[in-house]
């Protein structure tokens, strides 16, 4: 029972972070029709920047307990690189997907060295800050409160994102543009502005995700390329372009991975790819996606 609970909590925590990155990926794919390989790089950027921001604040006498808000603000701030990168993507919107993928692949290569330049090749860590929030007893388990806070933050963001997309005027414009770009243009929607804001929002989801995970795991240069495949698995399982799909996919991948790690660690990523292939074979559109062709 305890082992099971451990897997569930670990899995949901991982899912909470994955969801943020995958939601960014979905948003950008849904509206701009671009699969962004660089989403993992944004995640890593958020992680590294988060570490620097917290260390900077701590050095200026900030009480350790404030590190969570600092991380979130740091994630949002560094997400402001979004519009600049979107300006680059402008050149490939109407082009073949191969070029879109290659352009974001180029960004992955470049970010790898940008991270190395600013933070060096060694993995970076945030020390023991997680414990400043103490632990909570769940059954027979001692779970760091921080992990539960991250899960809560992710749920709040998910709900906020849902409400934003469904209820607000801008959310409706956004969905309309995703549905039919030409028609939105004809109706006077400023598509340039929509694209720039969607991409920035997507970037921020990734950077905030990275910033939130960093107190529990080291930031390393392998982070971006490793996360991309997980985020890909999430969106394929859930269905490309679907927010609910991102949520379901993140839970599947998070739980599966936690289960595999604790019971049969050889299967860690293997199990995820098998599920991805299974989903693509049986339900090509993903759990919540539209059927293809």
């Amino acid at each position: 029972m305890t082992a099971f609970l451990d897997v569930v909590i670990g899995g949901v925590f991982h899912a909470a972070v994955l969801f943020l990155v995958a939601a960014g990926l979905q948003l950008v794919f849904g509206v701009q029709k671009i699969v962004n390989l660089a989403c993992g790089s944004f995640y890593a950027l958020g992680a590294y920047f988060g570490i620097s921001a917290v260390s900077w604040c701590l050095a200026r006498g900030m009480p350790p307990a404030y590190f969570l808000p600092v991380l979130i603000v740091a994630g949002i701030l560094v997400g402001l690189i979004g519009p600049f990168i979107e300006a680059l993507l402008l050149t490939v919107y109407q082009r073949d997907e191969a070029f879109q993928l290659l352009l974001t692949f180029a960004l992955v290569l470049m970010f790898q060295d940008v991270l190395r330049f600013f933070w060096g090749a060694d993995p970076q860590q945030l020390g023991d800050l997680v414990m400043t929030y103490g632990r909570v007893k769940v059954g027979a388990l001692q779970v760091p409160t921080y992990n539960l806070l991250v899960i809560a933050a992710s749920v709040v963001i998910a709900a906020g994102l849902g409400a934003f997309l469904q209820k607000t005027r801008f959310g409706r414009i956004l969905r309309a543009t995703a549905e039919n770009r030409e028609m939105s243009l004809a109706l006077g929607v400023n598509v340039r502005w929509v694209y720039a804001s969607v991409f920035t929002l997507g970037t921020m989801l990734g950077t905030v995700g990275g910033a939130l995970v960093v107190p529990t795991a080291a930031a390393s240069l392998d982070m971006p390329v490793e996360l991309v495949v997980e985020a890909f698995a999430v969106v394929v399982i859930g269905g490309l372009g679907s927010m609910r799909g991102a949520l379901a996919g993140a839970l599947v991948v998070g739980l599966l991975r936690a289960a595999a790690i604790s019971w049969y660690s050889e299967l860690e990523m293997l199990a995820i790819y098998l599920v991805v292939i299974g989903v693509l074979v049986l339900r090509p559109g993903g759990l919540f996606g539209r059927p293809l062709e």
Partner: protein
Amino acid sequence: MRIAAALVALAAVAVLPNVLSPYHVTLVLPALAYSIALLGFNLLFGYTGLLSFGHALFVAIGGYGAAVLSSKLGLRSFEAILALSAGASVAVAIPIGLLAVRYVKIFFGILTLAFGMLFHSFLFKFYDLTGGDTGIRVLRPSLLGRAYEDLDKTTWLVGPFYYYCVALLAILAFVMWRLVHSPFGLHLVATRENRRKAEYLGVRVRFFRLIAFSISAFYGAIGGAILAVNTGQADPELAYWTHSGELVFMTVLGGFGNFFGPVVGAFSFIFLKDQLVGLTQYWRFWLGAILILLVVLFPRGLSGLTERMWARLHRSTPS
């Protein structure tokens, strides 16, 4: 005209060991290996219009095939190694292809990426079978039955092995040339240009895609086996998705619209990377920057650029 140019290029590659230092010749070897792999890749990408983002899978099968056969099973004949690795690669490609060719565009890319990563995590995690992250050593194979035991490693690589690979590239390029200019190749282009129309005309689209996929897997494995013999090691990085990305990078660098584009791409990528690595530790950044320039300004790659300059040259000099 093109054939003449190809022959001249081939002759140039053949005399390289007499001109270049052994170090640079060992750089040409991976370029030859990638040329072979990319000729196959471009049958899929350039001619059939399917972008695989997991093609490193087949390169890795070739590499591990050479490793397992030479150091675990004691098979030393390189011809047998090539045949068996390429055969294994095709055997893997057929079931994957049966699934993947139902899709095009991004879904084809993601599905192939998933299969590539599946193989990577198998190689990485099943330490007892695959040697984990260190991989498996590749022993020096015999070429056409000759072991060349009197030569040291570098002399062997830049000597017999080099010429062997040049010959292999020439043969495989010739076969590929015949393939893409045969009715089969035209079928592939037709399915790329207009799938529906091709179907109405009776082209079995999925069947043709599957064949193209299998042939590209065959070429990929041969390239992979050469790569692994050259480095003396097969490791999981061969199957990682960034390696697949590099394959696409090389093809676009050379230009996928031209038959020889991938070969141009392989050679220029290897030498570009070698130069950048020598100049700066931040070579990935510049590689990425070059890729962006390429995508934005010269999507037809180096071969497209030369074609355009050639055309302009002919227009400006009236004859």
